Every structure is written in structure tokens, then in C-alpha cells.
């Protein structure tokens, strides 16, 4: 992992920049601020950031354009800040390559948790093939799932879905994306399949399937594995 990860913060409200900067610097990040879309694109290109935090509603344009732009040359994680309640904006941002989003207003604790998860993902070059959460352990190299030491039976689709979520830990996966990856291109309209299979996974892996701790629902958007 980089010693002091660079974070580019694109947000037009100065006070929001102030507290986000303070929180991230407290985590040992170097923060570069931008108040407009144009500045944001420039900073993103110049600073080789480890993370971009992006407000969608900027005075000189839509943050969506920055995502599209940056994704042409970089895989840097992008965390979207959105005051918009419209789910379709979030889905659009995620489908274009944003990794996660926070709806305003958000707490500093939440912001830091998301930031850490995204930075960790970035530094996961020599990650272990074993992912553990709660009392569940998944060995991705041996396709083996155990819970409290005893093996858990998953169907091929359940396993494919689980490994996809685990491989993108902390990232919001849109319903469309999951359906395309797990069921193939023709299934993008069968959202209920996805929901039913996530339900199966929860029943097999979560302590309380009605109040999951790891396989989280982003209502109207998709799912996220929260390690």
C-alpha cells in the first residue's frame, strides 16, 4: 500500500471539502481539492490519486462526465457523493465505473469506512485467496466455503454470485451488472432471480438473513459485500 495515498476531492461546497479533508488527513491521506469539474479532471490527471471523491452536482457540469473521462485512462476507485435521491443517477454513475456512493448528508464515520474499503481494494495486489467474514471463510482458489468450520453447500450460481461480490468487496454492484455476469447477457430483466439467489446466500451465510451484516442491499440499485 502507498505510504500517503493521494485523494482528489471534487466538491463545490467549501465547508464539505473542509470536513472531508480534515477526516481524510486524519487517516494519513494527502488531499487535493477541486471546486469545479474542469479542475477535478486536471487534478485527477496530475496527482495519480489512489481515490477520487466526487460530487455529482458541480457548477460547471455533471460529475458523470468526469467518471466517463477518468475511466478512459485509469481504474482509480471513485466514490460518488450525491445529494440526488434519484436512484437512476446512482445507477448511471456506478454503471459508468464509479465504485461506491454516499448519499448526502453522510457521517464522517461512514465516509471513512467507505474510503478505507476502497483504498484497501486498491492495494490488494497480493491478496490472499481466502476471504473471511463473520464465521464464514471462502477459499476462492479451492472454491470452498465453510461456516464455523463446517462446509456450506452452494449451487454453482450461488457460488458465482458470491465470488463476484467478494471480488468486489466494498463496491456497489448494480443489479444489471450482477445479472449480466452471473446469468449472462439475456437475463438483465430478471431481477427477481438475483434477489432470490441473494436471499439463498443470506440464508446460508448470514446469522440473521432478515438483517444481513455482510451481503447488503442497496435498495433500488444493487448489492454490496461489506467485509
Amino acid at each position, binding site marked *: 500500500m502507498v505510504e500517503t495515498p493521494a485523494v482528489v476531492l471534487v466538491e463545490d*461546497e467549501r*465547508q*464539505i471539502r*473542509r*470536513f*472531508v479533508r*480534515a*477526516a481524510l488527513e*486524519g487517516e494519513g491521506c494527502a488531499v487535493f481539492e477541486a471546486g469545479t469539474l474542469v479542475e477535478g479532471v486536471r487534478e485527477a490527471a496530475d496527482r495519480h490519486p489512489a481515490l477520487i471523491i466526487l460530487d455529482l*452536482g458541480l457548477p460547471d457540469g455533471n460529475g458523470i462526465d468526469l467518471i466517463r473521462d477518468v475511466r478512459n485512462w485509469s481504474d482509480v476507485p471513485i466514490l460518488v457523493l450525491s*445529494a*440526488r*435521491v*434519484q*436512484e437512476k443517477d446512482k445507477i448511471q454513475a456506478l454503471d459508468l465505473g464509479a465504485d461506491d456512493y454516499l448519499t*448526502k*448528508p*453522510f*457521517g*464522517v*464515520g461512514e*465516509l471513512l469506512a467507505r474510503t478505507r474499503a476502497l483504498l484497501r481494494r486498491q492495494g490488494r495486489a497480493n491478496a490472499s485467496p481466502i476471504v473471511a467474514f463473520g464465521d464464514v471463510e471462502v*477459499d476462492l482458489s*479451492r*472454491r*470452498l*466455503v*465453510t461456516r464455523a468450520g463446517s*462446509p*456450506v*453447500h*452452494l*449451487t*454453482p*450460481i*450461488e*457460488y458465482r454470485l458470491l465470488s463476484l461480490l467478494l471480488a468486489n468487496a466494498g463496491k456497489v454492484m448494480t443489479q444489471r451488472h450482477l445479472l449480466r455476469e452471473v446469468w449472462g447477457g439475456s437475463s438483465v430483466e430478471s*431481477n*427477481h*432471480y438475483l*434477489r*432470490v439467489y*441473494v*436471499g439463498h446466500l443470506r*440464508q446460508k451465510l448470514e446469522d*440473521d*438473513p*432478515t*438483517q*444481513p451484516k455482510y451481503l*447488503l*442491499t*442497496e*435498495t*433500488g440499485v444493487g448489492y454490496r459485500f461489506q467485509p
Partner: protein
Amino acid sequence: MSIEKGGGALPPHKNGRLLALPTWQRHLLAVCICTVTALLATPMAGRLDPANIVMLFLLAVLAVAVSLGLEPALLAAFLSVGLFDFLFVPPRFSFEVNDGQYVVTFAVMLAVAIVTGRLTAGLRRRADESATEALRTGALYEMARDLSGALMVEQIAEITGSYLHRVLNAEAVLLLPDGKGNLKAVEVAGTKGLAVEPTLAFVAYEKGEPVECSPLAAPGFATLYLPLRAPMRVRGVLAVAPADGSRRPLPDEHGRLQAAASLAAIAIERVHYVDVAQRTQVQMVSERLRSSILSALSHDLRTPLTVLVGLADSLAMSRPQLPDDERETAGAIRDQAERLNGLVANLLDMARLHAGDVTLQKEWQPIEEVIGSSIKLLGRALAEHPVKVSLASDFPLVEFDAILIERVFCNLLENAAKYSPPGTPIEIVVRAQAGNAEVSVSDSGDGFAGDTVALFEMFARGEHESAKPGVGLGLAICRAIVEAHGGTISAANRPQGGGSVTFTLPLGEPPTIEEEPIPGEMDASHG
């Protein structure tokens, strides 16, 4: 647009002024012409053969027949025969005829007069008719042209009425259906109006066929009801009666009346669709405006709230740590800001629901998923209350809008947490009940006092709650959302204490989930 008003029916058109003269003048003219012919012929009596002189008289008869009509021609024929006989046939100056051959002359002259007179009269009549016809067609064309420029039904009624008055000498009134299925007359300023029998008008409207009642109509009532048939549907009824108040059937002229009715119907339909298009346009613009105002409002309200929450958090988390007292203050600021955010969310939701521009994004899904996400979303607000969810693990999928039903759960859970003592559990029970999924959210507080139905009215709150924050929008929003899904919502107190809100969602037929084709399972042994 020019509409000639009044003036009565078109005068029957007559070619040639002579034929228009009164009968006695025409006869006098015929006499004159014959007399003049006789006078002109007298000097030639000695030099010309009578057979040639008779030709002059024949010419006169012909002239009279052509220009003055049949009866003057007959008069001219008799007169000419008489004059010729008296003046030119030997013995002159007597009616005595010596030579029998002149009988032929008389007969020919008479025949010429009759044949020519009748021919002329027939030709004239036909010419008159076609001229009138041309005028009427012109009037119809003019009506069509005027109608094409009409923008309101009143104009259509006026144009149609004026056409019928001018061309057919008829009174007309236009009847259009109002919103309640009654036919109402379109008022036209400056007309005395025609009384209408509503039943007959309605029959014409419903059946789409003309209804005639000429001999039976009371004076001042319409004698004929014509449906206004437009391409899409019958648009109304045109009621007509002769303008002179008589009960005679209107001439023809159904053809012409029908044509006028068709033109009016098409014009009414056109005006109707222009209206519809305009309304849709206005509606679209106002909807777009409303939705952009709401999202701008949402952005503007949330930005300062974000700053408040973030700065208060930064204070609480600052290092070195603040004294407890100040940390608590920072925490309180944050909590209040979050509560304000909840109120803003509810207000915006209500505005959106109230404006009716919410389209349900219904999808089949397990209901426990949205319960879980609501609990997660509320987070700290539920910290003091464990939530117990009871639902069968094979509960069928339910079709609903996840985002809206999440709002329902959030509001109900938040209320339950707010009105029950810290540490007490909140219970969510989902059951299938008479074709519905029945969901109840119960707490262990004091329950509801007073009218539980009024709780769901906008801004209503239970009596005992006055010390608690909230404007009571939450339950009104829940009701709006649940009702939009075709469900019901109600509140009650549980026998064991505490309040309970129950809502239903229709179950319907969930789509089938195909089993995975390969039953092969992931298993330790397949490693």
C-alpha cells in the same frame, strides 16, 4: 373570417331581367312586340307576298317565347295570327279567310310559339337551378373554409348556424356532450335559439342516426336531429328547424344538411384534439417544472445539512478528544441535523406523492430484503431497540416498489422507536392473509390514543405524542404509498400493550423461478 349575418334565404336566381317581370307586364310587352311587327310590315303589304310577311310575325313570336316565356308567347301567337289575318290576308281588314292554305300558317305559328316557349322555360329553369346550386355549393365551401379557421366550438356553432340560415332558411342549434354525459347547447350570441327535445337529441347522439320529427314537433322546437359524426366518434348533435316556424320537412336536402353536419363534426373533433394536445403540453411542462423544483430544493436543503452533520462529526471525533460535555453537544447537533434531514425527506416525499408524479417501479422481490435494508438504513436511530422479524422462510415474492416500501418501513420503525421506551423490542411480523401479504410493525410503548384513523391524515398526531418530535407526515406518507400499491394501512393497540401498525400488499401470482439445471453443489469434496 367574414360571416354574413341575417339576410334570409338566398333569392332564387333568375337569368335575364325580362323573365323576372310581373306577368301582366310580360303580356303587355308581347302585345307591343306584335303591334310593332304589324306596323313595320304594313308598308310592305303590297310589295311582299303574305307568305313572307308571316315570317316576320313568326320571328316576333319566337322573340317573345325566348325572352318572355310560354304564356306571353301563346298570347303573341294568337295575336299575330289575328293581326296577320286582319291586316294582310285578302280580303284585308276583315277576319274572313279566302284561302284555306292560311290555316297551315296559323297552325305553324301556334306550334312554334308553344314549342319555343316551353323549351325556353325549361332551359331557364335549369339554368336558374344550376346557378342556385353553384351559389349553395359556394356557401358550403365558404362554410368549410370558415370552419377550418375556427378555434372554439362557439365559432363552429355560429358558422354552422349562419350557413344553414342563409342557404336553407333554417334555424340550427349545436348540442355537445358535457363531462357528465348530457348534451348541452352551445350558446351563440345574437341568436334567439331553438328549443330542443333532449330525449330525441340523445337518441340521435347514441345511435349516430338522424332523428326526424317534423309533423310532431311543437312550435319553436327542432324538427330534425342530426348526429355530428366525426372520424373518431359522434361528437354531438345538430338540431334544425325551418326558420319560419312552420313544421314542413326541411327541403332536401338531407344531402346538404348532412354535409354541413359532417363539416361541423370534423371541425369539433379538430378543436377537441388541439385542446387535448395543448393540455398535454401544459401538463408536461408543469410536471417537468415541479420535478426540477423538487430536486433543486432537495439539493439546496441537503447541502447545508451535510455540512452540519460532517462538521459536528469532525468535532466529536477530533483529536485530542474534546471534553465530554462538548462532545455531547457536537453529537446533539449531529442528531438534530439528521432529524431535520428526515423531515426534509418526508416533506419532499409528500410533495412528490401529492403531486402525483410518482410512478411505481414495481418488481417481484422477497419482502425481507427491504426490511433488512430499512433496518440498516436507520442504523443509529434503532440502536436502542432490537428488531425482531418473523416471517416464513418460504414466504412468496411480493410485487412492490422497493424504494417506496423501504420508506414505509423506515417511517414505521422510526415511529416505533420514538414512541417506546429504550431497550424494548420492535416486532415485525409478515403473514399471508386472504390474498394479501400482511405486515405489522409493533412496539412496546403506550400505544395510540384517540382516533387511529385520523393518524394517517396529513399533519395529524396521536394525542399522547405532543412531547415527541415529528410533524406526523410519516404515517400520511405510508398511507399514500401503501394505497398506491393497492393495499390498506391501519393502526391499533395490542392487547399486551404497545401500538401496532398493519399494512397489506396484494400477493398476486409471482413469476416462477426455474431450478438450476445442474443439481451439482459446491462442496468440500469438490475442492
